[in-house]
């Protein structure tokens, strides 16, 4: 078998779908620099494409999906998330200081601050590793940043230092006061993270809720509960300003 035959066979199996996940990932990396492999993949995609188009039944996707997609293509890019994170950190510091001052000041000032915390527009959580060994990056930066935009009723989670693991998926959970079991917010399946509506949760139960991320088989927990111990934790706290980045709404 010549090398060219082998590349063509590899491309054919990649397009057919018979490679295991690690082989598949390796091909996806290699095709970026191996023009022969990339060309062979393109040729096989064209050869077999009629199968996909012919056999797929048209299925109407849920009506809300397009709005979710629009939100994703207009949400902050990674550098904006970092700015948002700094923003959140600053406001969290201010909130902590304000709380200390409030303990000493008059009831009126305390009531004012209480109102600010009680009716936030934006909640932010930074999730840090709680299980396993932290890398140097993980020790100073969160694994994930989660924002809850209460005006838009949208929960957005983005990985910062968290790295994907082959065959495993990160799943985000929320633990609210008075709710006995963790509730899934969805699967963080890629660098774009996840966006979910917040309408299932009363705003008052989101502030100070604890967020956690578990590692699950691909596709997420089949049982609806976390499979093992949580790997990352963080607490939702009020920030004062809405998220950066334009919204489509």
């Amino acid at each position, binding site marked *: 078998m010549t090398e060219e035959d082998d590349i*063509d*066979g590899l491309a*054919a*199996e990649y397009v*057919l*779908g*018979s*490679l*295991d*996940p690690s082989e*598949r990932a390796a091909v996806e990396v290699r095709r970026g620099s191996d023009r022969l492999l990339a060309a062979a993949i*393109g*040729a*096989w*995609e*064209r*050869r*077999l*494409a*009629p*199968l*996909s*188009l*012919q*056999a*797929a*039944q*048209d*299925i*109407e*996707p*849920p009506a809300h*999906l*397009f709005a*979710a*997609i*629009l939100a*994703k*293509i207009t949400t902050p890019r990674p550098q904006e998330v970092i700015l948002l994170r700094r923003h959140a950190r600053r406001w969290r510091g201010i909130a902590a200081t304000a709380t200390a001052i409030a303990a000493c000041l008059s009831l009126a000032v305390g009531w004012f601050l209480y109102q600010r915390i009680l009716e936030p527009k934006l909640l932010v959580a930074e999730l840090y590793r709680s299980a396993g060994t932290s890398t140097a990056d993980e020790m100073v930066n969160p694994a994930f940043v989660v924002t809850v935009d209460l005006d838009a009723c949208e929960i957005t989670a983005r990985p910062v230092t968290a790295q994907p693991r082959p065959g495993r998926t990160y799943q985000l959970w929320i633990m609210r006061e008075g709710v006995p079991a963790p509730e899934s917010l*969805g*699967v963080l*399946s*890629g660098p*774009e993270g*996840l966006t979910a509506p917040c309408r299932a949760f009363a705003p008052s139960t989101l502030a100070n809720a604890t967020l956690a991320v578990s590692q699950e*088989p*691909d*596709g*997420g927990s089949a049982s609806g509960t976390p499979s093992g111990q949580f790997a990352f934790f963080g607490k939702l706290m009020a920030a004062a300003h809405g998220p950066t980045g334009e919204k*489509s709404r």
Partner: protein
Amino acid sequence: MPLSRQQLIEALGRVARGDQAAFEAVYAATSLKLYGIVVRILGRRDLADEILQEVYVRVWQSAGDYDPASSSPITWLATIARNRALDEAKRKSMVSLEDNPQLLQLPGADDPSANYEEIEETRRLYACLNELEPEKKEIVLLVYHYGLTREEIARRLNRPVPTVKTWLRRSLEQIKACLGQ
């Protein structure tokens, strides 16, 4: 709303320049097909919902990479959807083509979305598939439609993995030779 091949090419061009209205038109024209592809591979609607969102985010980000000279726009879009779903696929339970007999059938001539060229390409491909031994044809279709790995096929057929790999490679070589491309 259906778009002709040329309209879809033009809409993707506008998407590449950041035109959200064109993006919506592309979504309206193609999301039923792509969702169908993703649902079939993943078998779970909730997961398919997430993957379809990722597919269209990718379309938004990489519409400028689409080359009309290389493939039809729907082929390009379907390839993105299929690849993303295959990356995600883990379900792969004991699926059977007997449960989905339409996967073995030729496309209907009354499919309004298919043009003559696409129908001919499909007929040629099925003619070549029909030259394979029935068991090998079924394996090729099962892998393509459900993303079964060599190991999963080997377990189903109680055959060594290297044998399955050889079967797949030979079947694919045979298809390539038959298509003459």
